[in-house]
């Protein structure tokens, strides 16, 4: 299965490098939204709960753009049939797509998080960074797993652009909640506090739960 996942990932990376459809759109959306918040909140800086909320809600909406495009090439260019004709484990497609989305989110955050720090964040990002990295990785995993499942469901419908946010946003509320609560103490005005283990555990459990659900149902989503 590893070779299949590697082949699918390499193909997705090559397609993104050629088309530049997902990552640039996600980056532009995030940075633009932080600019809008900068003026909309009418505050020079934010911190704590508000900063964590602004950071994660923006990253979530940026992720929706990537989720929307995740299976478009498969759907429009026969990629599903090409994959289904191969003697491979169908779960490989889910794992590869979730890894691709996870990678896209990490790349977007390489730009979006520093932009957030420059445009909005009051406290220094440096002290919060180690803890924030842990939260980013855990939340990205949740968004990637749930997002891939939703994208596979929505791509079979005519109203894909509507279905993705309608399905993904409610399902990702626990991820945003856990990520925001875990991030808030890191962005406090008095300096970064310790990473709250309970919210991080919630994120980890949610990731695991949806990974198991996806493993159980993904094959059925590919059936005719």
């Amino acid at each position, binding site marked *: 299965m590893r*070779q*299949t996942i*590697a*082949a699918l990932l*390499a*193909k997705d990376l*090559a*397609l993104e490098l*050629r*088309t530049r459809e997902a990552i640039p759109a996600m980056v532009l959306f995030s940075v633009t939204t932080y600019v809008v918040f900068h003026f909309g909140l009418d505050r020079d800086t934010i911190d704590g709960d508000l900063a964590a909320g602004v950071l994660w809600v923006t990253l979530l909406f940026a992720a929706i753009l990537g989720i929307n495009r995740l299976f478009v*090439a498969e759907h429009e*260019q*026969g*990629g599903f*049939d*090409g*994959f*289904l*004709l*191969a*003697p*491979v484990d169908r779960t490989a497609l889910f794992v590869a797509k979730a890894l691709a989305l996870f990678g896209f989110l990490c790349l977007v955050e390489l730009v979006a998080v520093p932009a957030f720090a420059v445009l909005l964040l009051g406290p220094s990002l440096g002290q919060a960074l180690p803890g924030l990295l842990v939260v980013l990785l855990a939340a990205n995993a949740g968004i990637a797993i749930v997002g891939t499942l939703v994208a596979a469901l929505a791509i079979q419908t005519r109203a894909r652009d509507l279905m993705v946010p309608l399905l993904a946003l409610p399902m990702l509320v626990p991820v945003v909640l856990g990520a925001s609560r875990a991030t808030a103490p890191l962005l406090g005005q008095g300096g970064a506090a310790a990473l709250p283990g309970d919210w991080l555990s919630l994120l980890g459990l949610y990731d695991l739960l949806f990974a198991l659900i996806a493993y159980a149902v993904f094959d059925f989503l590919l*059936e*005719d």
Partner: protein
Amino acid sequence: MPDLTPAVSLRGVGRRYGERLALRDVSLELAVGQTLVVFGPNGAGKTTLLRMLATLLRPHAGELRVLGRELPDDGYAVRARIGFLGHEPLLYRELSGRENLRFHARLHGVDPARVEAVLEAVGMQGRAGDPVAELSRGMVQRLAVARAVLHEPELLLLDEPLANLDPVAVAQVQPLIGAASGRTRIVTSHDPVGGLVGADVVLGLRGSRAQLVARVADVTPAQIAALYA
């Protein structure tokens, strides 16, 4: 003792799309190495039949056996032995022909050297580095042929395989997908003369039903023409 198991066996096979019957009560057997040509007007069920045999669609009625395996339950076991060439080339437009074939080679566990061999066989080595989006339809069809035979399948399922090909390209792909390939083949066609070349058995579909199942020697042009009347 020779293996007398049919390559393909259908008994009362049917398929619906919602309430609409796309194929009903189709029965036939095809021996290993034989070619079945399927005629029928648009919407008669030719593509549905091929997609069921390729494990892409589930039959809703009847029994379907391919290469000795029951479908859809044993689909995994036969996929590596089937080459499918449908109306869509199953190639990513932004990737080059070579990148597409390497991707499929990895999915099928095929040696990458085979990619260059099939590219040469279909006469596409010179344009193999160009994105598929920049190629003519005939060139894309040649790449699709290369994809379908990349893993050297025993059974070829070919939906109007020569569409968009010029005479030179037709000659190039014949050793791969023609009767000379020695493979068991199921080919759809609208050409009552050319379609019969190299065929052993004829299936005529009309109104989603099998109107004609016969050996080529027993079929008259009038019988094929009647399918389209």
